């Protein structure tokens, strides 16, 4: 479980996150949603420790993460996996080397064991016969899958995904969403997904947190989101013509 308490973050005097408190539960796909520039990525990066919050606390179970030193954070980070918006695969390494990298760095497994684990992870994300390819030779969807394979190679306890569907076609986006949901349940991970894709919200949003202009405006499930009375959330959810039409039909 990850708990955020009274989190503030500002850049050059401009408040980007204002007193955010939220709990992300294990075994569930937790979504942070909001418009572009609302502070979603800043919140996610603050949680994983890439940004230092001005005030507030970030707890990983019973450990106060944002007060730890580098070595202390390192221990928690070894239990984290992250899927970045642009996949962030290492350009100079092949797919196999990318997925093997955390194993090389943090385990004492033999090369055979590591190769088995790499192949297992790649198979799990439905990617085969690409071990020797470089990231530049992969499509956007394949890169995301390889990045997920790398993220799960050490059996993480926490999975973070920053805009996993950006730049993907709707079908591939649904595949990636489902993969994240399946893996979350399979490994009982605490998963936090940052998105503004309404398909993801409806498909996998077991817990949803809506951020608007740095404030937490609403939280609930994908069942509740369509019936919310939060104006900003409704403006966001029913932004496109199709959604408005569906809402009209429902009424």
């Amino acid at each position: 479980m990850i708990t955020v308490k009274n989190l503030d973050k500002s850049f050059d005097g401009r408040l980007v996150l204002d007193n955010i408190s939220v709990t992300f539960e294990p075994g569930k796909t937790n979504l942070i949603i909001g418009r572009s520039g609302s502070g979603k990525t800043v919140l996610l990066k603050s949680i994983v420790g890439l940004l230092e919050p001005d005030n507030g606390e970030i707890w990983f179970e019973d450990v106060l993460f944002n007060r730890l030193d580098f070595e202390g954070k390192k221990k928690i980070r070894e239990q984290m996996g992250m899927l970045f918006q642009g996949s962030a695969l290492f350009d100079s390494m092949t797919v196999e080397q990318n997925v093997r990298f955390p194993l090389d760095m943090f385990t004492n497994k033999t090369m055979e064991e590591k190769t088995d684990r790499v192949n297992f992870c790649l198979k799990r994300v439905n990617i085969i016969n690409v071990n020797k390819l470089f990231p530049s030779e992969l499509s956007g969807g394949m890169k995301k899958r390889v990045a997920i394979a790398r993220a799960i190679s050490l059996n993480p306890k926490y999975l973070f995904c920053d805009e996993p569907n950006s730049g993907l076609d709707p079908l591939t986006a649904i595949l990636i969403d489902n993969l994240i949901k399946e893996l979350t349940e399979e490994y009982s991970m605490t998963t936090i997904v940052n998105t503004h894709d309404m398909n993801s919200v409806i498909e996998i949003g077991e817990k949803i947190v809506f951020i608007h202009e740095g404030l937490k405006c609403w939280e609930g499930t994908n069942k509740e989101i369509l019936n919310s009375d939060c104006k900003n959330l409704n403006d966001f959810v029913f932004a496109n013509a199709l959604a408005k039409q569906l809402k009209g039909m429902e009424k």
Partner: protein
Amino acid sequence: MLLNLFRDIGRYFLMLQKVFSKPEKPVIYYKQTMHELVYLGLNSVGIIAIISFFMGAVITLQTAYNTENPIYPTYLIGLGCRDSIILEFSSTISALILAGKVGSNIASEIGTMRVTEQIDALEIMGVNSASYLVLPKIIATLLFNPILTLISIIVGIFGGWIAGTTAGVITSQDFIYGIQYAFIPYYITYSIIKTLFFAFIITSVSAFQGYYVEGGSLEVGRASTKAVVYSSVIVLMFNVILTQLLLS
């Protein structure tokens, strides 16, 4: 502006502190260092050899044309070529060339990793990104740049000999006598010491420019240019300081 300078100096030393902290897994760093030895060191042999050859040739010809006086014995052309190359050209000029080649390479490589979130990915995994990316490069250049300097000295003097004898400004016998005359072995040590300092400056300053880049491809390009300019200027400043310290 002054505030920015102090901030950058502070960040530079903070980065170095991270770079020289205990490696997560020494065997991985060893492999990276071997890779960097080839990438930053071995791949620079060609350019250093070509430039040194022509540098030696020009030094010999210019010394010859400037000492066209019967008072001066011709073997002094060989001596002048040898000392100019050992004392200054092989260490300093090679460092400036390497600042252009290796420095821009390091800054753009690390800068691209920064803007494409590859450095963030390393940090999330619990890897000390500064150490993993920069330490092998520093070790590789510290190990290989002195070899480049020695290659530069040998090729430079060879270039001088070829140019001098081909142009007919000095006989082969006089040139060889000149390069052996009043030879001070400490000059080689001096040149190597300077090379070690320059190697560290080029690698660490360029890595710093790349590591803290913010933005996109335009900023990576700027960081690469800054890496070359700053490391060249610092190399020249240290050249003066080291010369005073080591030769006075």
